[in-house]
């Protein structure tokens, strides 16, 4: 039998038989489904299952603590949202400082290099502990004493170093001819960045930046080590009291609900970006 769908013909350039089109999907779906069912049967039949279920998937517990975990998750997401904006700007500043040429800008350039080297080389957890506990303990007048504030600063500092490097790779990827054209038009260094280099650089690295945003979205949970009552902390408090881990599962579900859509968006943006580049070269 010949399949006459115009869509398939357009995509493949030739007519596919129904069997060739559908069979692979059927087989793979059946395989996955079978594996899941077998796995499920094994789990349900295991003698430990009731205990596991009570410990990890206890619905009553989840419902009881969910409002608190959700509230904590709100803190996670607000920190994430604010950090994202600050990082986007601060990292760009760092990348620009690093790209500057000329003796006047040398100190700024060195600052940027040292900053990036230091903060990229240290574990985020260490930075969070150092800032979150250390800065409030200093009791410096005029500076905030909230460990949430300083924890967020630690995350921002650390991620900015990565994001700055991403921006820099984007700036490096802009063709030299663009700089030559800008110079030939009489643009100064700042105008060249503003009109020629940065718009292209940011467009080129936008997918990579989104990837960093996904990573940050879950890493904000590090702030729980400071005692901040975020989703993880709330879940942990309950766990410590009752030895029931269901609330951690609830927190996990919330994080997944946030990160997976963003990851899909990143995929989509990456795909669009690749299509755009392909179009340009052909």
């Amino acid at each position: 039998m010949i399949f006459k769908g115009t869509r398939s013909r357009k995509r493949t350039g030739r007519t596919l038989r129904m069997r060739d089109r559908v069979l692979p999907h059927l087989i793979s779906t059946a395989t996955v489904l079978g594996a899941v069912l077998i796995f499920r049967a094994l789990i349900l039949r295991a003698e430990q299952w009731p205990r596991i279920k009570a410990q990890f998937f206890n619905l009553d517990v989840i419902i009881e603590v969910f409002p608190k975990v959700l509230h904590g998750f709100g803190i996670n997401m607000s920190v994430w949202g604010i950090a994202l904006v600050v990082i986007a700007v601060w990292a760009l500043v760092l990348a620009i400082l690093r790209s500057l040429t000329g003796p006047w800008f040398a100190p700024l350039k060195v600052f940027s290099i040292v900053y990036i080297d230091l903060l990229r080389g240290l574990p985020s957890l260490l930075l969070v502990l150092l800032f979150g506990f250390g800065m409030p303990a200093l009791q410096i007048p005029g500076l905030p004493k909230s460990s949430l504030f300083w924890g967020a600063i630690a995350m921002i500092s650390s991620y900015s170093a990565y994001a700055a490097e991403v921006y820099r790779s984007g700036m490096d990827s802009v063709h030299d001819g663009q700089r030559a054209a800008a110079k030939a038009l009489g643009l100064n260094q700042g105008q060249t960045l503003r009109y020629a280099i940065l718009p292209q650089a940011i467009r080129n690295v936008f997918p990579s930046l989104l990837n960093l945003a996904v990573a940050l979205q879950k890493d904000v949970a590090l702030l729980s080590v400071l005692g901040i009552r975020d989703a993880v902390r709330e879940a942990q408090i309950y766990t410590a009291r009752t030895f029931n881990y269901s609330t951690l599962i609830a927190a996990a579900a919330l994080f997944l609900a946030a990160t997976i859509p963003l990851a899909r968006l990143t995929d989509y943006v990456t795909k669009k970006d690749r299509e755009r580049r392909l179009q340009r070269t052909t």
Partner: protein
Amino acid sequence: MHKIEIENLTKYFGDKLVLDNIDLKVREHEVVCLIGASGSGKSTLLRCVNDLVPFDSGIVKINGLSIHSPEFPVRDLYKRVGIVFQAYNLFPTMTVLDNITLAPRKVHQIKKEESEAYAYELLALFGLECFANSYPEQLSGGQQQRVAIIRAMATRPEILLLDEVTAALDPELIGDVLSVIKSLKKQGMTMLIVTHEMGFARDVADRICFLDGGRILEEAPPAKLLSEPENPRTRQFLQRIIEAGRL
């Protein structure tokens, strides 16, 4: 009067001598073509004229004044001398219109309406007015190159430098760009042109310079240089071009 005067220009890239004591003068309204093998220093010479690359010794004068003299205002150089590159180098994140008006507005502080009016005038002249709000990627190579020429002309320069502006184009698109350049010649534009199109050089040039190893080996009107070159290396170069079917 001389628009461009290049005197004893020498340039090294590292240890490599790229331009060796070049002397070249271009009068007002004159069109001079630079020809020569790949790597002979044509692009570098062009870029020295508007200070895109630094050189080691010698002088480049525009309108009789050294481009490095303190009296020569830097902005003036880029206003008076426009350059067009082989790879167009339009800014891809900007529309055609913004590409053209960027320098007039941001560098030379000309009002938006005024610079846009002039941009439309130039676009219309080259038959591109319907692309004003397109992005460069949406244009063909020939159209992009014509936009690049318009961009270089948007500051009303007195001198245009053109670096192999047709080298990246399909043969059927070359004609449009070349006819634009010919019309610029009719308007009296002073031009220094690097080209591999010998037929075009013969049509448009008042003089042709043959560059080899960073030196100008021969300099003559097209009829003479292309038909009866004196220097054996020029003859050899033209012979190879003829063999490649490009003359």
